[in-house]
């Protein structure tokens, strides 16, 4: 079972348990945090109502300047109001979330010119709301918005596929670093940003990898895959180090994580990206990351199969071979752990 330890499991002897229980009860009463199923429901509702608010604004307004002005106003009101109301006043918090999201759509929607202002404005708007809107759902979406703005910027600035691959590797490295330095985040004043940014980067990585499912004719994706393999190797090395694996064992993990995906699926960066998120999800016990990555990984695996330039019979053989290879790897791991 993938879950973080309980307080009981890590509670040091000698600390005042009665005071701790009292403090925890007070914290539960005052806590503004909601668990992920509620955040998902709130986020879905906010998206839908924001869409309707945007449609309403477009129905009553003429011209894009008016829409952008109204959007900016909606963002300002949303941020201003949200910073003043407590999270327990759920109607107001939900209203501010919807207002701000609708405002973002109204401001960014008409930005379709070819200058760099549009993507830069998107990144800036994302950064502004990330820092000023104290809501985890909004912060997750702001991170995603910033990443999409970066994709837009790189696409317009450097019209070369390798640039987007490099951006994907940088996002993967950022994601790994975010969860690697979890304790440092929690010590800092930006503790509340940690999970929204981490999950936002994971979602951005999955979205950025989506085009690779279809393949990009005439373009070799091996560079991007190699970069992601390196990030995966670092993440796997750190996980092995933390688990107390010997230096030799870690070296095997490092080499396997770098070379195996590159040998099996050099044109499928999405598979490697999914493997990276699976490792992070397992290491930091985040089921949402883990299962999300499993889902995306299966989609990317299908993309890998579809792109194999082989006759159908050999493609089927490749699937069986990969399956047998994975089972053989499992057997080797079992034997190695039994030997230890």
């Amino acid at each position: 079972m993938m879950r973080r330890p309980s307080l009981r499991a890590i509670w040091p002897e000698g600390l005042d348990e009665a005071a701790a229980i009292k403090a925890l009860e007070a914290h539960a009463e005052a806590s503004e945090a909601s668990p992920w199923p509620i955040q998902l429901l709130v986020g879905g509702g906010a998206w839908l109502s924001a869409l309707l608010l945007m449609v309403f604004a477009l129905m009553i307004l003429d011209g894009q300047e008016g829409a952008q002005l109204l959007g900016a106003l909606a963002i300002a009101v949303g941020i201003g109001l949200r910073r003043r109301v407590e999270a327990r006043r759920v109607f107001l918090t939900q209203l501010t979330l919807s207002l701000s999201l609708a405002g973002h759509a109204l401001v960014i929607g008409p930005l379709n010119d070819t200058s760099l202002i549009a993507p830069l404005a998107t990144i800036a708007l994302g950064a502004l709301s990330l820092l000023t809107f104290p809501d985890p759902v909004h912060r997750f979406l702001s991170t995603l918005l910033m990443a999409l703005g970066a994709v837009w910027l790189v696409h317009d600035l450097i019209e070369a596929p390798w640039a987007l691959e490099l951006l994907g590797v940088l996002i993967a490295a950022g994601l790994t670093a975010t969860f690697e330095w979890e304790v440092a985040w929690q010590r800092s004043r930006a503790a509340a940003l940690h999970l929204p940014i981490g999950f936002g980067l994971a979602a951005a990585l999955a979205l950025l990898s989506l085009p690779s499912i279809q393949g990009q004719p005439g373009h070799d994706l091996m560079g991007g895959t190699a970069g992601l393999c390196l990030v995966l190797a670092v993440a796997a090395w750190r996980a092995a180090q933390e688990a107390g694996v010997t230096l030799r064992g870690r070296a095997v993990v490092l080499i396997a994580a770098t070379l195996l995906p590159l040998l099996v699926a050099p044109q499928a960066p999405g598979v490697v990206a999914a493997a990276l998120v699976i490792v992070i999800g397992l290491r930091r016990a985040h089921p949402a990351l883990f299962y999300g990555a499993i889902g995306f990984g299966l989609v990317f695996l299908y993309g890998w199969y579809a792109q194999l330039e082989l006759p159908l019979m050999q493609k089927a053989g490749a699937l069986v071979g990969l399956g047998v290879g994975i089972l053989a790897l499992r057997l080797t791991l079992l034997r190695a752990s039994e030997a230890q």
Partner: protein
Amino acid sequence: MTDTRDPLAITATAARLRALHDAGVLDEAARLALLRRAAAGPDAEGWRRHLDRLALELGAGLIVVGVIYFFAANWAALPRLAKIGGVAAMMSAAAAWALYAPNRLSGRVALSAAGGLLGALLAVYGQVYQTGADAWTLFAAWAVLLIPWVIASRYPPLLLKWLGIIALALHLAVEQGALPLLSQKPWPWLAPTLAPALAWIIAEAGVVGRGPLYFLRVVGAAAFAGLTLSALILIIDEPKTVGAPLLTLLGLAAAGAWSLNLVGRRPFDLVLACLAWASAVIITTTLLGRLLFDALSLYESGVLALAVAIIAQVALAAYWLRARWRRAPS
């Protein structure tokens, strides 16, 4: 096993550790030490367990899919015996491994793979001998033949797969006109919902145990999806009979009551409760949309009213869910 009566048997989140620090229970050094322990990943044994399961399920899945693709790719070139014998041999091999290691994870995964290959065998048989049967009969036969395997394995993923096959058989039976009484909308979606709904009822009743939480969540999500879709179809295409609306209403009421713990003795589960609220919000919003746009012909103000209605409903849902979640034992 977590002791739900122990107030400290709750997840060691960063927020809780900070709260303990702010209350003076932990000093900064103790907070950071506990934070490090809470954020530490699995040990070597934990990683071995996770990777073992992942590799086993992925490896077995790839082999089954690869075998199916192999037959699809070489269909015309293969003799009859090879077609049926090949699938049967692989199914037997997987079943034999399951028999050899019934209590090991590999045995259960092998039985699931054999269950998948059983369907492939039925499909191959139907094609080789041109039985002319409708597709739904294939799935129905598959579901019937799978019953002893499901009972023998007591493996929830295989049970979920079996429920999925029954649902597909029911959907295809209604679509292909095998059940003329159920030919009207929304029966193609309502009939398959019976499979997860019945599984849910049996699980809630605790007749054969409730199974793992994820099982309840999957059947709950499937039942809510089918019932909500049926309700939306009924709202948009006004019903001509009372059977489907009555069953949908009853189903939604029962699912809602169980999910929100209004009845039953199961511990509160936030995921099921959120599903109930999401279903309620979707159905109410659709009803309101029909009223505003079709009955009252309100367009601009209708869109605004709908947005406000969604915000209000989700706010109410979040308020209720948070209050209920806080009261629930961890």
